[in-house]
């Protein structure tokens, strides 16, 4: 283990934001004597990845194992990457400033499709061959994970192994299997076979990728499972939320104490991949949440606490949690934030509890402009819910509102798009009606409109995505009907959504496109100022792959899908049934409020819904 600091330090005077590379934060763990070293990469800059909760959980978990050190790695911004290449400095871990290539394991979370070129950049800067097949015994095992593991095929060739699902238990098993393989002196090939025996671990090299007429399948004699089933933690209460996570110096996104109050969401929105792949709902108890939140605030000194989950105000004991936290934090200038609110009076009650007299902004996601389309996507809210909530919120002094919508949802017509503008008009009218005349000038509604991207493992995984021309047409319709005064309209870049769509449902052959884009100077594609669709289109063209067909042509229900060998536990039959119910505009209830909807997760994974309180409602 060689400390590279003396080579890194001279570069820092010449790069932007050197704090990205200096470690030394409160909470950083240094275990220089550990025999097994894991480098954990978030494939973007420090400020984007620092607060990632998955990395924080795995960092704490791995550093808690005997003789194991986990260290953080982020992708150096372009100026630093260039400086490192010019000076011959390889990608290094922050804590010990060690070359990543000298570590035993290189763990990479893949949070978002567009970070794939940064995976190439990190591997190359580390001096590790991009493709697993080209790696030698001296290279670390490169293990992926995160949301994109549910369709890992576009990046599969870059990984030795990929963990599907939750990592709390699985990372320890992966490290154990790898340590055992090393102590037995197993070859790289045999090591990968051993890793494939860890439940939830997918070793791409052991599989024949899917073809036009057949799903992916294990290679003859590989011993790999026909289907890799996601890992899931049955009881979230078995693990505390990180008590002392690293406290950044830099202004990073989501720079706050985070306590995950529940995992999974069964509201059943049919476009939402997270809602399908993180099932079932498992709540932490109110006692555990309050205990972990106060402990984390004490240890980190953070000034904001976020109670995270996909639907925090659905927690069956959320009112008790917020009352106890508000009382404990009074007078300490600590704010509590909720990432999303239920669209009803209860949601406003909860917002009032954490606001402590101040009135910031409120965020809601109606997603679609008409009831018909909200029923198609199973967004179980009505216009009355939204308007009633707005009436209460503005009546109580809130003046800023953010509304999220999508265009391009299956079955959408121009009528539905116009419905968004009309709905916003009605929201504005109510806001003005209940706001005193002198304060009406302060009314602002931010409307954020993204383009629907069909994702794997959802009822809409077979659907086509709008072409760029169609998106522009729908955006025009929306602009024509959206009120101007009091509304700030924002678009999600349609070119980014289009590319996201190709990568989200692509197959193994896309790795050639990704590598070509990276070799032609691509990287940091999640950054709008850097993103270039033209570069991607050239690469698709050079590799003979039609991205429009990939993203926009609907797939038959009987066609093999590139991710058929990966199971989230939700059955394909259920997804197809949900798709049919969508087309029939039939809604499906939330199983954590009512009865089982037979998605298949609980019996397949041997788990059940875990509620902290008696019931939700």
């Amino acid at each position, binding site marked *: 283990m060689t400390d590279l*600091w003396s080579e890194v*330090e001279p570069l*820092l*005077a010449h790069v932007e934001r*050197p*704090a990205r590379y*200096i*470690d*030394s*934060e*409160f909470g950083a763990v240094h275990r220089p004597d550990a025999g097994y070293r894991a480098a954990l990469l978030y494939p973007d800059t420090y400020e984007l990845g620092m607060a990632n909760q998955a990395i924080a959980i795995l960092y704490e978990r791995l550093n808690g194992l005997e003789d194991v050190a986990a260290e953080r790695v982020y992708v150096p911004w372009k100026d630093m990457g260039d400086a490192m290449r010019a000076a011959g400095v390889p990608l290094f871990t922050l804590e010990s400033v060690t070359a990543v290539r000298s570590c035993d394991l290189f763990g990479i979370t893949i949070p978002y499709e567009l970070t794939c070129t940064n995976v190439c950049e990190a591997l190359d800067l580390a001096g590790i061959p991009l493709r697993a097949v080209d790696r030698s015994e001296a290279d670390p095992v490169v293990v992926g994970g995160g949301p994109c593991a549910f369709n890992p095929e576009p990046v599969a060739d870059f990984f030795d192994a990929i963990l599907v699902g939750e990592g709390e238990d699985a990372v320890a098993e992966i490290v154990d299997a790898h340590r055992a393989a090393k102590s037995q002196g197993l070859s790289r090939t045999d090591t990968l076979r051993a890793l494939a025996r860890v439940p939830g671990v997918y070793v791409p090299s052991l599989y024949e990728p899917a073809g036009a007429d057949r799903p992916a399948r294990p290679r003859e004699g590989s011993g790999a499972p026909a289907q890799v089933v996601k890992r899931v933690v049955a009881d979230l209460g078995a693990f505390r939320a990180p008590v002392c996570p690293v*406290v950044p*110096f*830099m*202004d990073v996104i989501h720079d706050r104490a985070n306590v995950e109050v529940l995992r999974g969401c069964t509201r059943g929105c049919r476009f939402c991949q997270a809602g399908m792949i993180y099932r079932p709902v498992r709540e932490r108890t109110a006692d555990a949440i309050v205990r972990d939140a106060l402990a984390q*605030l*004490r*240890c*980190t*000194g*953070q*000034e904001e606490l976020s109670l995270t989950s996909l639907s925090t105000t659905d927690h069956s004991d959320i009112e008790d949690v917020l009352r106890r936290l508000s009382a404990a934090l009074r*007078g*300490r*200038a600590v704010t509590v934030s909720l990432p999303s609110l239920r669209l009803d009076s209860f949601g406003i009650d909860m917002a009032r509890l954490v606001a402590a007299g*101040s009135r910031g902004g409120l965020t809601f996601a109606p997603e679609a402009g008409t009831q018909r389309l909200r029923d198609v996507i199973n967004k179980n809210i009505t216009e009355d819910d939204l308007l009633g909530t707005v009436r209460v919120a503005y009546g109580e002094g809130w003046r800023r509102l953010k509304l999220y919508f999508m265009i391009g949802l299956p079955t959408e017509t121009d009528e539905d798009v116009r419905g968004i503008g009309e709905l916003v008009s009605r929201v504005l009218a109510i806001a003005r009606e209940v706001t005193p005349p002198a304060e009406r000038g302060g009314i602002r509604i931010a409307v954020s409109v993204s383009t629907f991207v069909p994702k794997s493992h959802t009822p809409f995984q077979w659907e086509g995505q709008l072409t760029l021309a169609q998106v522009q047409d729908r955006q025009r319709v929306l602009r024509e009907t959206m009120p101007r005064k009091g509304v700030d309209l924002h678009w999600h870049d349609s070119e980014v959504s289009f590319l996201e769509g190709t990568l989200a449902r692509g197959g193994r052959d896309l790795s050639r496109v990704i590598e070509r884009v990276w070799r032609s100077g691509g990287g940091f594609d999640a950054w709008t100022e850097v993103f270039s669709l033209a570069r991607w289109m050239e690469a698709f063209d050079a590799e003979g792959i039609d991205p429009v067909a990939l993203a926009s042509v609907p797939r038959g229900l009987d066609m093999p899908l590139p991710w058929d060998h990966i199971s989230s536990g939700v059955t394909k039959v259920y997804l197809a049934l949900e798709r049919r119910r969508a087309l029939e505009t039939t809604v499906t209830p939330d199983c954590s409020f009512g009865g089982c909807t037979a998605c298949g997760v609980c019996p397949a994974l041997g788990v059940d819904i875990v509620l902290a309180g008696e019931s939700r409602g």
Partner: protein
Amino acid sequence: MADATFRLRVTYGKTGRLRFLSHLEVARACERTVRRAGLEYAVTQGFNQRMKLAFGPALPVGTAGTAEVYDVWLKRFVAPDAVLGLLRAATPEGLSPVRAHYAGEREASVAAAFTLADYEVVIGHPDRGPGRLAEAIGDVVSSGVLEMEHKGARKVYDLAICLPEGVRVREEDGRSVASLTVRMGAQGSLRPDALVREALRRAGMSDELMSVTRTGLRPEEARA
């Protein structure tokens, strides 16, 4: 009537790797240190309540400091030595507090109180020695004016005003160390590394600037 508060003045270092932090990053880190130390701090009133905290003059990214200062208002008196212990235990290495004492409420703010800053600039060119460097810096100082561009804006410094106490150069461990005092004003302060770089440039000497450290902050009249 507002509750009584105790104005604690903390002197701390910004050293080692943490010299690469910006002023805002240091400020945020110190605020979190106070929270971690478990001290009962006063908060500002208003829409966004914040810890009541005030910082001395900013240090640029890359410049170290050994006697930086902030004030924090506490709701409860804690003996300075005890506070220092609590803060040290809660601080990342490199931002460690070195001194804590209570300041009077009527004393000037830390931003206004200190008008002079002492610096040491280390230059690593042992073959040329301190004499040549002193001469080069002396040439710039005697020219009376330093013009430079900063973030696209042109700045002109009157060196007789900016450098009230001259520049001294000594040799230490085979390196040249320039000591100088900069007067800070409302229009911004002269960066000592800029002065030294300009001297090196004018003398045709290679730029081998090793480090810049602010070693003290003081009011003007305090020096004998």
